[in-house]
């Protein structure tokens, strides 16, 4: 009756689809298409794939990647779940500190974690040089052991956060019921509590798996030539002898395939295993013997301490005098001074691009979230899935896709700052969209209707009522987007050019140029910059809201 077809939300829908198509769907489709292209006269459909699976040089990368990600996922699940149980179910001293510290471990991007382990245990590392005085040495940190260590330590906090949140929503009556029905505590755990946690466990495992599959910086820095899918893809694309976009696209397509399959498998599983739990009284802390409590405390602090080592190492080492990769005892600001000579623009680039990208993510994210939550339809469900796809696609693949699409007319972005912005924008759009849709589902639609019935038209109602109510979600979405954007390396390393190097790129090149001092100083700035917004959100909104769990 009343014409509502082409209102503001129609525009938002079109803008949402255009954005996703321009910066995600079209680039990815191009990557897939390129993987089937070939050179020479005899066109063979899957020539690149044939070459991939018949040459050990190529196919070993997929084996390495799957192997490392699987092991890291298992390790992170074991560590994260154990820690979650220890902190939630036992009266450990300093619980708040343990929780906060585990969150802080998420602040430093994994490649900085990898670099910090090199600073400590590398050939020229602090520990090895200390030990060499006594003619001792440690087994090498480089190669698959180092990668696995970094992956596990960097990614277990995801599992910890998700499982803790889920544990806090299990009602004590569930355990009581199991116990009263004759299950001993261990059986109550495996038959009553763990099944309720299954969706969170698998969600955590998925985050670890996809994150480690896509991780480019860690194997580059600590892998010493070990080929994984992202590093080989980068190598093929940026080859000094002229690059091989077709093979890079083949590797990218395989990455998309693996991650999307993992994502869909988890979604399918979690959908079938999702239970509605009503939590009135959360699980109580269990009593236990002093000895066990001590053991659990030591375990929890050891795990969290290990997770904090990278950030602490980086910040301390940034104030040490250095020469090349060698650091000496003492205090010096030389590394911070060196930043201004060596990479003067990187800091400005990073802050500028990150801020711009976060503002764009929040702006579009809030509007799209409203569309997804309040105007449900099949079309919007498609848009939702496409936006969430950005979670699953590695930055390296997005980077290659954007370069291939936008280095030819009509739109040339390659080589400009805009291509970096495009990648940041699309890859971190899911954070505000997720946090805001989740929030909107908790806001009673009637509140908006009440406003409309009191004489305030829909859009002004959105501004005057909905936005203020969504504020916590907007802030936490923005903080998460900021935190993940600011240290982004895997697409930046492909997309930057000339003056547009970011801090993450600068750290990476400084590490490879053996300028560990500047690398540490830049990484310290990055960690602090990632920390500040999250800290403020924390103070304003409290722990749970800040992390969007």
């Amino acid at each position, binding site marked *: *009756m*009343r014409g509502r077809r082409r209102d503001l939300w129609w525009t938002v829908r079109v803008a949402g689809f255009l954005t996703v198509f321009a910066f995600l769907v079209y680039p990815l489709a191009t990557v897939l298409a390129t993987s089937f292209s070939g050179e020479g006269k005899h066109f063979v459909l899957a020539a690149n794939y044939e070459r991939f699976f018949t040459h050990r040089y190529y196919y070993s990368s997929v084996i390495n990647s799957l192997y490392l990600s699987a092991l890291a996922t298992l390790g992170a699940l074991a560590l994260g779940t154990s820690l979650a149980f220890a902190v939630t179910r036992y009266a450990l001293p300093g619980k708040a500190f343990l929780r906060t510290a585990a969150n802080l471990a998420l602040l430093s991007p994994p490649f900085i974690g990898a670099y910090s382990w090199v600073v400590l245990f590398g050939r020229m590392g602090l520990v090895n040089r200390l030990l060499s005085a006594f003619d001792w040495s440690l087994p090498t940190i480089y190669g698959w052991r180092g990668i696995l260590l970094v992956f596990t330590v960097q990614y277990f906090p995801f599992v910890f956060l998700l499982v803790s949140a889920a544990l806090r929503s299990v009602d004590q009556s569930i355990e009581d019921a199991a116990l009263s029905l004759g299950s001993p505590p261990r059986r109550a755990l495996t038959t009553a509590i763990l099944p309720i946690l299954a969706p969170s466990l698998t969600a955590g495992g998925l985050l670890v798996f996809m994150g480690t599959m896509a991780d480019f910086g860690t194997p580059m820095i600590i892998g010493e030539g070990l080929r994984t899918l992202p590093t080989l893809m980068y190598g093929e694309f940026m080859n000094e002898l002229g690059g091989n976009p077709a093979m890079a696209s083949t590797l990218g397509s395989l990455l998309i395939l693996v991650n999307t399959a993992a994502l869909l498998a988890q979604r399918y599983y979690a959908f079938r295993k999702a239970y509605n739990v009503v939590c009135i009284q959360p699980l109580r802390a269990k009593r236990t013997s002093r000895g066990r409590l001590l053991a659990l405390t030591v375990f929890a602090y050891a795990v969290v301490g290990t997770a904090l080592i990278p950030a602490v190492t980086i910040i301390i080492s940034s104030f040490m005098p250095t020469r090349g990769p060698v650091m000496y005892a003492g205090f010096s600001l030389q590394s911070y001074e060196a930043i201004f000579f060596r990479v003067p623009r990187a800091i400005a680039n990073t802050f500028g691009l990150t801020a711009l990208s976060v503002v764009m993510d929040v702006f579009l994210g809030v509007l799209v979230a409203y569309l997804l939550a309040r105007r449900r339809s099949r079309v919007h469900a498609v848009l939702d899935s496409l936006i969430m796809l950005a979670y699953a696609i590695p930055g390296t693949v997005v980077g290659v896709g954007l370069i291939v699409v936008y280095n030819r007319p009509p739109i040339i972005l390659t080589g400009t700052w805009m291509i970096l912005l495009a990648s940041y924008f699309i890859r971190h759009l899911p954070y505000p969209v997720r946090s805001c849709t989740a929030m909107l589902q908790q806001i*009673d639609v*009637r*509140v908006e*209707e*009440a*406003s*409309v*019935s*009191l*004489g*305030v*038209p*829909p859009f*002004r109602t959105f501004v005057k*009522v909905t936005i*203020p*109510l969504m504020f916590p979600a907007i802030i936490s979405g923005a903080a998460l987007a900021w935190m993940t954007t600011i240290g982004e390396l895997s697409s930046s390393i492909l997309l930057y050019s000339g003056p547009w190097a970011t801090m993450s790129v600068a750290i990476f090149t400084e590490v490879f140029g053996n300028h560990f001092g500047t690398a540490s100083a830049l990484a310290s700035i990055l960690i602090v910059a990632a920390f500040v917004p999250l800290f403020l959100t924390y103070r304003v909104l409290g722990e749970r809201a800040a992390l969007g769990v």
Partner: protein
Amino acid sequence: MTRVRVQGIVKRFGDTAAIDGISLDVRPGELFTLVGPSGCGKTTLLRIIAGLLEQEVGSVLFNEDRVDEVPPYLRNIGVVFQSYAIFPHLTVAGNIAYGLKARHLPADEIAAKVAEAGRLVQLDALLDRMPSQLSGGQQQRVVLARALVIEPQLLLMDEPLSNLDAKLRVQIRSLIRAVQRTLQITTIYVTHDQEEALAISDTIAVMDRGRVLQVGKPWELYLTPGSRFVADFIGTMNVFHGHLEAPEAAAGWHQMVTSFGQRWQVRATGASDGQLSVGVRPESLALERGANSDDAWNPLTGTVVEAAYLRAIVRYQVRVAEGLTVTADIHNPDFGAIRAVGDPVTLWFSANRAVLLPDRPGGA
């Protein structure tokens, strides 16, 4: 005061008709209640009147004006929602002032109106509080004041009491009724609680499956339900099936035989095939035959299967036949009126208090 007319409204959700052709006429200044079981379409109809939903067919008129094309924010309607829909980010005063600000009133006028509305709903001491500091009853009064302060031409209330405890429900109900009478504002009130509907309304419309079954004063619906559904929904009704025997000459009395073989005298006719259903309210049943000899008194014999002593009444469940138990409320019982479970009992009712129910299958 606004007269509201609803004409031939149809609203579908997918394949099901939530509103299946409804017409109503709400008189100016009255409290008109839509009552029915959940899913009967009462809230849907309310939202259509508010303009929050669009009907597929039909019209809504305020006085002589069709408002179908008027968006909700221009209809000047006060809506009170079941979930309160209080603005959690605004104070009590901010909530009440919200609609006035949208109308761009001067600040001093807004302040005066907010204070007055606060007094009206007895919230004047709490105007600076945030909603999270209020009890459910207080929140309900805030949204009532918020809806009334804009001086709407129509007040719509969607189950406003359902989230309150029993005692508060009665309090707020009286408050709503008193305020509505004072302001003489046409009000459409939705509830699933027939008792609430009877207590508060000038006029009630009973709804089921997207249709209005009967419209009337509270006592009309109770005393002369037009259908089995209305009889059951408003209060409790004992229903007996039977058939007519040859009509008796005297003063329009008819002879009826119930399905369990009891002979009764009833007024009026049944269906053309001689089948009929008779309804008797629990309080119309007595332990003795009445003294009035003008009346026909019908007996009902059975066995007490349950007895609940409720001070002013004793409520008996009496089995009168296999699979048929009736409820009888015996008023002001003294020792002589107490029966034990298992006792045989004879109940009596005046033929004048028996209601003839159209006996359509499905109970509608």
